[in-house]
């Protein structure tokens, strides 16, 4: 459910991660990477709203800057807007069923973000490998290359996601407890309180 209280947060985080995606930081091998933002969007807004946010970012990037491209837009939305948003949310949701201390939440945020980014890269590799008309390499080759290179990005995304979650727990825990726009079959997102820093 997308509520009136969620909309300003959704707009702010979407703008924030649009800007963050312009900030390329150097990683090994002379290449750069940037945050995707899917994990934070999914965790704070819920996966449906996070998916919409990521779709807006990808659409603006493709339409105005040619970043990502229009013909690959659907694939990018699936990779970064669905896989990269739902996986971190599901990992945190499952963790919250068993533990609610801040350490566990931050570990779940890191793990979910890492897995989300990694799986998004695996899907991108799969799509590239299956594009036999334009890509001459097999699926295993493409998937391996994407997974290895993007695991570093996943680790970076995991660290930043855990730090942002930790910051929100301390400063604005109410933002984490807003009703999430999520599928009903996933169930209610448990309340996260500012007391999550203690042991369970």
């Amino acid at each position, binding site marked *: 459910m997308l509520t009136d209280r969620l909309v300003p947060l959704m707009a702010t985080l979407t703008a924030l991660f649009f*800007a963050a995606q312009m900030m390329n930081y150097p990683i090994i091998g002379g290449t750069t990477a940037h945050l995707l933002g899917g994990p934070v969007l999914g965790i704070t807004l819920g996966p449906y709203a996070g998916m919409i946010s990521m779709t807006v970012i990808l659409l603006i990037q*493709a339409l105005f800057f040619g970043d990502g*491209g229009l013909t690959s837009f659907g694939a990018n939305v699936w990779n970064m807007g669905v896989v990269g948003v739902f996986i971190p949310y599901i990992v945190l949701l499952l963790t919250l069923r068993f533990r609610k201390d801040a350490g566990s939440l931050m570990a779940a945020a890191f793990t979910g973000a890492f897995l989300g980014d990694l799986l998004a890269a695996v899907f991108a590799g799969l799509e590239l490998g299956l594009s036999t008309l334009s890509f001459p390499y097999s699926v295993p080759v493409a998937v391996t290359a994407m997974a290895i290179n993007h695991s570093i990005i996943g680790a970076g995304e995991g660290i930043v996601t855990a730090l942002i979650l930790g910051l929100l727990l301390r400063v604005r825990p109410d933002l984490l407890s807003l009703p999430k726009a999520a599928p009903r079959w996933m169930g209610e997102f448990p309340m996260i309180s500012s007391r999550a820093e203690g042991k369970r």
Partner: protein
Amino acid sequence: MTRSMRLVAVGLTFAVVFVSVGVLVLSMSAETLDEVAEKFGVRESPVYKPPLPDYEVPGFEGNTAVSVVLGIIFTLLTLLVTFAVGKALRSPRT
């Protein structure tokens, strides 16, 4: 100032910092996906010509001030578009 307005203001402040740091400080060498593509010899064959290719205004390529302003304008555009989409999709009972 309401809490929502304060949230938007703080978020936009960070966004402006991200855009400025991204354009002014951090390098713009190849992204990981581009690196993988280059390794496999894959070339782009665009079917659409964007108005601002590679986040630069034609005629002002390499001008960092223009790039920062462009980033800020499109950050605001992203905020407004998402706000409009969110308002359109929100539950009518909230």
